[in-house]
Each structure stands twice: as structure tokens, then as C-alpha cells.
């Protein structure tokens, strides 16, 4: 069997270190031994391309998962999943989860004294189309406090999980909203060394996908690691 074509390495500065002491829980969870450099093998360049389970239309509308409408600002988040060469990542599973408009997660361990919303769970799943497009409807999540340091608050964000064409492409990230005053104080956002790369996690308001009398549009493109050649010719 021919050797596999490896994916590009991590872009310097665009990916966070394991240890970032300002984010306190990294201190006991970051490895201290050097990482062993792994050349990509068949095990890494393959992966669960189609994700898992059946994805239903209601999975892409987080405002329609209960009997009533959730409270908050209705938004439509859309964008493309691409590789570094700008090629679409088609038919890949995107999983999203978030807190409600008040900044509270539907999670037993979330003790923030903000109200739960009986009409909002906050989890969705979308499969990208042939051009790498995804789209879902939700409500804008709130900021919320956490105990990392005194008066610590997370900027509003939606968690994203992507598979991509191989397991090596696996990416979990967070999408933020433009102009959030909390960026400067958030060690999770600031954990990305390169300021320009950090800004890639910030969605942009988009009038074209804003629906009159209904919902504001935000665009968020995701770029996964690519490679310099294709392993198979068409």
C-alpha cells in the first residue's frame, strides 16, 4: 500500500498551548512530558466521515425543539466548512451546543443563578451540503460568570464540533459574537497566541442572511487543516 498523504501541520500561533496558566484548569491537565511527533498513517487520515446517527431538520432549529418559543434574540448562524486550500468540506457533521439567552446551560452542574428556559435545550446538529454550507436557527446565548478568577465572565459563545474528512481534522471550537467587551478578559479566547487567528473565532453580523421581521444573521466560516495534494485522482 502506498504511503498516505499527510495533512498540513498546525498553523503556528493559531492553535492554543495545552498549558495556559491564566486558564486555571489547564494547570493540572496539561501534559508535562514532550509530545511525541506522529507522522500521519492510515489511522489518522481516515475517520468517521459521515459522523453518526440520523440528523433531522429539527436538529438545525434550536427554537423549535419544545412546545413554545424560547426567550431571547432569534438568530440564524450560517457559514461554510472549508479546508486551508479553500475547498469545501462536504457531508460533514457539525454539532453545536450553547447556553440560553440568560447565560444558563441546561446542565446539572451549571449553578449560575440565571433562569432555565423550558423552551430551550441548546443542542443542534447539522450536516454540511456539497459546498460545505451549514445553517441553523437559535437564540443568541448570554454571557455567564465562571470561577476561573474573581469576577470572571465568559463572552457569549456557541460551541462547535466538526469531524471533517479525517480524524486528524477533528476540531472543537467556540464561535463568538462581534464586538464583545469580554474578549480582553477571557483566558479561553486569549489562549490563542496569534491575535489574527483569535479573531477567526468571531462571527460577523450579516444583513444578507438577516430575515426581515424575524431573525438576525451571523456568518461563521470554519477552516480545517488541509493538505497539498489529493490522495486519489478522480
Amino acid at each position, binding site marked *: 500500500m502506498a504511503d498516505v498523504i499527510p495533512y498540513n501541520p498546525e498553523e503556528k500561533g493559531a492553535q492554543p498551548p495545552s498549558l495556559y496558566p491564566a486558564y486555571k484548569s489547564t494547570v493540572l491537565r496539561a501534559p508535562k*512530558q514532550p*509530545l511525541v511527533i*506522529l507522522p500521519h498513517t492510515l489511522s489518522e487520515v481516515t475517520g468517521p466521515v459521515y459522523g453518526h446517527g440520523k440528523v433531522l431538520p429539527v436538529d438545525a432549529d434550536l427554537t423549535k425543539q419544545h412546545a413554545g418559543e424560547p426567550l431571547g434574540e432569534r438568530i440564524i448562524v450560517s457559514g461554510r466548512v472549508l479546508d486551508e486550500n479553500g475547498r469545501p468540506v462536504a457531508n460533514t457533521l457539525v454539532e453545536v451546543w450553547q447556553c440560553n439567552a440568560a447565560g444558563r446551560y441546561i446542565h446539572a452542574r451549571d449553578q449560575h443563578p440565571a433562569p432555565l428556559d423550558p423552551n430551550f435545550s441548546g443542542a443542534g446538529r447539522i450536516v454540511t451540503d456539497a459546498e460545505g454550507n451549514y445553517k441553523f436557527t437559535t437564540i443568541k446565548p448570554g454571557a455567564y460568570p465562571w470561577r476561573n478568577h474573581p469576577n470572571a465572565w465568559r463572552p457569549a459563545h456557541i460551541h462547535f464540533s466538526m469531524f471533517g474528512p479525517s480524524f486528524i481534522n477533528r476540531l472543537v471550537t467556540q464561535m463568538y459574537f462581534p464586538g464583545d467587551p469580554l474578549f480582553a478578559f477571557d483566558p479561553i479566547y486569549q489562549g490563542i497566541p496569534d491575535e489574527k487567528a483569535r479573531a477567526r473565532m468571531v462571527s460577523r453580523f450579516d444583513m444578507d442572511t438577516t430575515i426581515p421581521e424575524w431573525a438576525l444573521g451571523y456568518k461563521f466560516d470554519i477552516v480545517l487543516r488541509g493538505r497539498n495534494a489529493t490522495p486519489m485522482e478522480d
Partner: protein
Amino acid sequence: MSKQRLGQTPSQTVGPFFHFGLPYEGDSNLIVGDAQGQRIIVEGRVTDGAGEAIPDVMIEIWQANAAGKYDHPEDTQDKPVDEGFHGFGRCATDNDGVFRFQTVKPGAVPGPGNSLQAPHLVTFVFGRGMLKQLLTRIYFEDEAHNAHDPVLALVPEARRNTLVARKINPSTYRLDIVLQGEGETVFFEY
């Protein structure tokens, strides 16, 4: 050369509250039908640098089927895909930091050149306090080919055992994952 590359989207932590978003029914059971091969349980406990069990990490595995075939277009080996088996599994740790997968023992798979890789599970660890996931592998102690595995050969000999699951009964393999400190698991840069 080609046009300018787009910049990679940075990784961020899954955070502590992923449980309503990522786990799904049957996520840790890779056997979805009449799967070929030896049915096994792979389990372990995840601990941090203080030796404390971590109840809020998530483990994902990707593996070949019993014949050593990945269900993916880039695996061009002339071997059958197993309809009764799904190569991907996901498991959030429980309150004791324990994960447990029901799967089949994978076959050996091709490695670089003409080498063969010993049976293994590609393993990601995600969690709060982890801005990016960690990559490791789970091998099996009763595989003679471990001695010739091209990836284990890259790992300092004294640390190889951190990647090799012990057989604790005829159908159960156990490997604890130590994020930091004594017995720290080998993680890979990829």
C-alpha cells in the same frame, strides 16, 4: 505554487457543559449489528496532575474493524467493510473518571512503507481545561506485533507501557489515561 492558504480556525475547550450536546444514545458501543471478530470492552480511568479522577472529560476512539479495514474511502485495501461495526465511539467519563467502550478488537493496519501497525485505537481526550484535545493511542498487551509497531517505536521505551492496555479478563482490556505527572500517558503532536 497554489493560492494563499486560508488560516486555520483555532481549537477551544469543550468546556464542562458538553453533556447535553455531544453524547448520544449508544455512543460508546461500536457494535451495531452482527460484527465480525472478538468482542471486547476497553475501559480506563482518566486522572489529572493531582491524581484525581476527572469526571468531565470525553474520550473518542476511531479504529479499524476486525479485518484491519477502516470504513473510509482512503483505505483502499481489498478487505471487507463490516456492516455490523461502526469504527467511531464516544464516551463521557462518569463520576469516577471512568470510560468504557464496547467494541471489537481491531486487526493490524498498514503503516508507513511496507510496515504493519499493531492493532490499536486512535484516541482523543477532550475536556475542560484542555484548550485543544490530546491525541493518544490504545494498544493491546497480548499482541506480539507491538514489538514491531512503527508508532510505538517512536515512543521512548520506558513510556510505551502508557499506551498498552492490560488484559484484565478474557474480554476486557484496561488502560488508565494520566494527563500529567507520574505515569503520564504519551500524547502525540500531529
